[in-house]
């Protein structure tokens, strides 16, 4: 799949993003780690920036931080993750922003509902994926989640967006 078939590209990236959403809701985090290129970055910014490394973010995860974070979720010692909130998310309004060689940049909207302690909270975000097409399918190169009210008062999260 090294050359990108433009006809079905939107459908292919949509399938990939829905698959990712399903494994995040199912908390199949090992499978999620496998979706990443090792040099990939998972970023949840507070404010827009040209260089997210130079500013404070909600999270700025390279490979090591992603693995540490997943380990924290899985080991059962984190009281906020044991038990974690249950989540259901939908992603929609997909737009392909750019295609360059094996790289596709796609933006979409995300709605996530979390349930814990008998209360539900709703979060919304704009998400931008940078995907690399490989022999075995797409891999995450960068994922930037812009939460609504990201610079305002939030709650703590025991899951990923």
């Amino acid at each position, binding site marked *: 799949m090294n050359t990108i078939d433009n006809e079905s590209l939107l459908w292919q990236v949509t399938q990939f993003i829905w698959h990712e959403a399903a494994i995040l809701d199912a908390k199949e985090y090992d499978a999620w780690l496998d979706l990443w290129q090792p040099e990939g970055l998972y970023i949840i910014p507070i404010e827009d920036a040209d260089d997210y490394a130079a500013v404070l973010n909600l999270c*700025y995860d390279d490979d090591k931080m992603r693995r540490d974070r997943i380990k*924290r979720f899985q080991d059962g010692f*984190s*009281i*906020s993750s044991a038990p974690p909130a249950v989540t259901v998310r939908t992603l929609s309004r997909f737009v392909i922003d750019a295609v360059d060689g094996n790289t596709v940049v796609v933006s979409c909207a995300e709605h996530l509902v979390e349930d814990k302690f008998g209360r539900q909270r709703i979060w919304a975000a704009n998400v931008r994926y940078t995907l690399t097409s490989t022999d075995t399918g797409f891999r995450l190169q960068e994922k930037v989640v812009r939460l609504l009210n990201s610079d305002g008062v*939030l709650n*703590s999260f025991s899951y990923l967006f």
Partner: protein
Amino acid sequence: MNQLIDVKNIALDPDQLVHNDKIATPMYTSSELFEQEQEKIFRNTWVWVAHTSEIPDKGSFKLSKVGREPVIVVRDRKDNIHVMVNRCRHRAATVCEVHKGKTSSFQCPYHGWGYGLDGSLRALPNPEQYGDDFDKSQHGMLKLRVESYQGMIFATFNESVEPLEDFLGAAKKWIDLFMKQGGGYPVKTLGEHQFSVPMNWKVQLENTTDAYHFPIVHKSFLQSLDEEAEKTFTFLDGEGFVEDLGNGHSVMVMIPELVDLEEDLERKIPERFEELAQALRDEGYPEDQVRRIVRAVGGSGFNLNLFPNVACSMAFFRVLTPVAVDKTDIRHIAIGMEGGPDIANRVRLRLHEHFQGPMGFGSPDDAEVWERIQRGVDGGAELPILVNRGIEKEVPGEAGPRGHVSDETGMRAAYAMWKRMMQE
């Protein structure tokens, strides 16, 4: 010590609510008490509102809170800092809803009254209907008294309260030490995480000098560190202590060798900072400065709790805002070096993200247990909340009683002040 509390007849009497080594359930649950606290505590003493680096230039402003009351913190053209209630003197609309920025004046969006950077009423459209004796100088925005120490800006509605430096008292020494993490540069804020927790504000007030919870609640954080760092954060059997500093303030020394960041710079650089040290050397920083900066990046080895709403905690400011009896907003403000090496500030940012905020490896676990307290106090109102740990073993410290690092000395300090203020 284990007697129950007759909550039905307690009548919100501070004497019965705070009994030195235990407190009563209504402390976390009574809306009536919450209202009284707004008046007697948050309107009555110095409340932290901002850091000077958040309003760096003439005309810079930011929104903040004193208790529940919205205020604007602003620097005028002469570099004087003003704090005023964000409320138009006409019919009370907020005059500003932009979190931070720069301006030359504030104009109310409703009928257009215009205010200067010092809150004075400058102009209003069509003033003639008010008649000749309308005195603009009597209709400026409501201003608070403002004083600052080491860049920390505090404000109060109480015109007759003691000077800020007297109020801080023995805590000043610790603020001075805390600011050494500028590594020779001025300290500046680098952004903040904000989250809301369904709990009473005093649950958070207790937490900053509570070392007892650290190895339990933050086990998953500890496990994400390398061995050397994990050892640094395993301080319960070390030489640390917690001390009552008077006026409700307290300090908890977790890592004694990191109390004074400029002392003993020859000591080995921790492995997790070796890469940063090398990068600084490569940028041409001399070895002593490399060590000073690296030490600063790791943060201070203590937490300082300042009654009632701010803490200097290792490498950040922690600010609480009481919203309702069972709702509190928390801000964790990252700090770094103004004009310092970019690579060092970036490491600070990553360390902050690692522990703090909605996605950190520490804050969500704190938030969870705080919420559980608020859920727990819905049952067994007659049971006391214990803050008696270590009371028998306290010794005199430099400023006040000193206990083992895991003792509840800091909480007793805060509640003694709470009681004093509520009885005044």
